[in-house]
């Protein structure tokens, strides 16, 4: 049986390690269970601290794609060192090229696109596990949305209060028969009808929730069909208990 020192050392190296030996120790040692709760609270703050908001400038989008143009500029004028008038001019030029519709001819970012983009920021959440998140973390994540979640929703393995479109929203991962499913409770985002999406490897649905905005439910990869996602979304929606 693992001792407390070894347990704490392992947890401080990887607080989300699903190792069965660690879990066994945690369940049998009250002190280490309390220690873990504190550590996971710190971990949640750490994740938020690392996710700095780096403002998107006009040239940021340009930096992503018109690489041929950027490369050509670079070849003509040398490496793009900052803080020179030329770097600024080049950025503006690239932005204009993009604004000209070279490649961004699609509509502006939709709610679904923003949800998918948000997923990219939390890849560690998609872990298949049967270990529920600490209940204190789940309560923290749900508090801002004035929400409780009934056990019928399934095992919640990840819970975070995330900044999304200017608001803190609950971001949960629920373990289902189809694997981990991400749920975002979007109290401030209203949709008129169900929106299904299949973007960048994520498939999901955004459903309207009467008087409480909307609910996004999505899976990663092509394995889960849309009908199953709709079914999971309905089950999760039925498990929501609004307290305010």
């Amino acid at each position, binding site marked *: 049986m693992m001792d*407390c*020192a*070894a*347990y*704490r*050392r*392992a947890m*401080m*190296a*990887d*607080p989300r390690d699903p190792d069965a030996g660690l879990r066994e120790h945690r369940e049998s040692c009250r*002190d280490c269970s309390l*220690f873990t709760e*504190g550590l996971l609270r*710190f*971990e949640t*703050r*750490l*994740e*938020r*601290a*690392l*996710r*700095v*908001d*780096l403002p998107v400038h006009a040239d*940021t*989008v340009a*930096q*992503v*794609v018109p*690489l*041929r143009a*950027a*490369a050509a500029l*670079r070849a003509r004028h040398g*490496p*793009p*060192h*900052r*803080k020179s008038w030329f770097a600024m001019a080049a950025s503006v030029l690239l932005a204009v090229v993009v604004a000209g519709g070279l*490649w961004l001819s699609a509509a502006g970012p939709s709610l679904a696109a923003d949800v*998918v*983009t948000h997923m*990219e*920021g*939390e*890849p*560690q959440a998609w872990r298949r596990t049967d270990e529920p998140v600490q209940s204190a973390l789940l309560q923290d994540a749900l508090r801002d949305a004035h929400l409780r979640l009934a056990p019928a929703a399934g095992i919640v393995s990840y819970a975070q209060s995330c900044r999304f479109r200017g608001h803190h929203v609950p971001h949960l991962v629920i373990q289902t028969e189809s694997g981990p499913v991400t749920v975002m409770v979007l109290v401030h985002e209203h949709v008129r009808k169900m929106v299904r999406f299949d973007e*960048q490897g994520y498939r999901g649905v955004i459903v309207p929730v009467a008087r409480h905005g909307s609910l996004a439910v999505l899976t990663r990869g092509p394995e889960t069909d849309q009908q199953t996602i709709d079914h999971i979304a309905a089950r999760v929606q039925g498990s929501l208990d609004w307290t305010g």
Partner: protein
Amino acid sequence: MKDQVGGNQKRARFQALCKSLRPDLLRFAFWLSRDRALAEDVVQETMLRAWKAQDSLLDEAAAKPWFLTIIRREYARSFERKRFVTVDVDELIAREEPMLAASEDQDLVELRAALFKLPDEYREPLVLQVLMGFTTAEIARELDLSDAAVLTRLFRARKQLRALCGVDTSLDSQE
């Protein structure tokens, strides 16, 4: 004609990939360099190199570590170019204050300042694990370390960070 269509599709897919990964890559570069302007330069250079070398990316699922490797090389190059000798952490914090303090949560502001003070060898694996979702084995591969060395660095990183943030560390394990 067929080749051109295929090329356009490939280009569009690569563009979409770059776009989706960019926020995280920029954050990684920022925490690596602790300098937003330098991070933007590094990411821009990375995108250029990635574009030229895209044929070597055989599996899109492995795109993130592939980009991160390029970022780390680019950062090392910029470091050589500018020949930084010493780093004044307080100066770095002061320079990036608008971003570090861009939160109504004072705890987060303090935590970000503490992250700035962590030695590079502890901060980097921590960012790879927490922000990028890398496993211990993936971090070990990226940093060319053993799994045990990675775990030791992660342990020390959290221990120092908690102490810097005033967390009671009396119950933390000792080495």
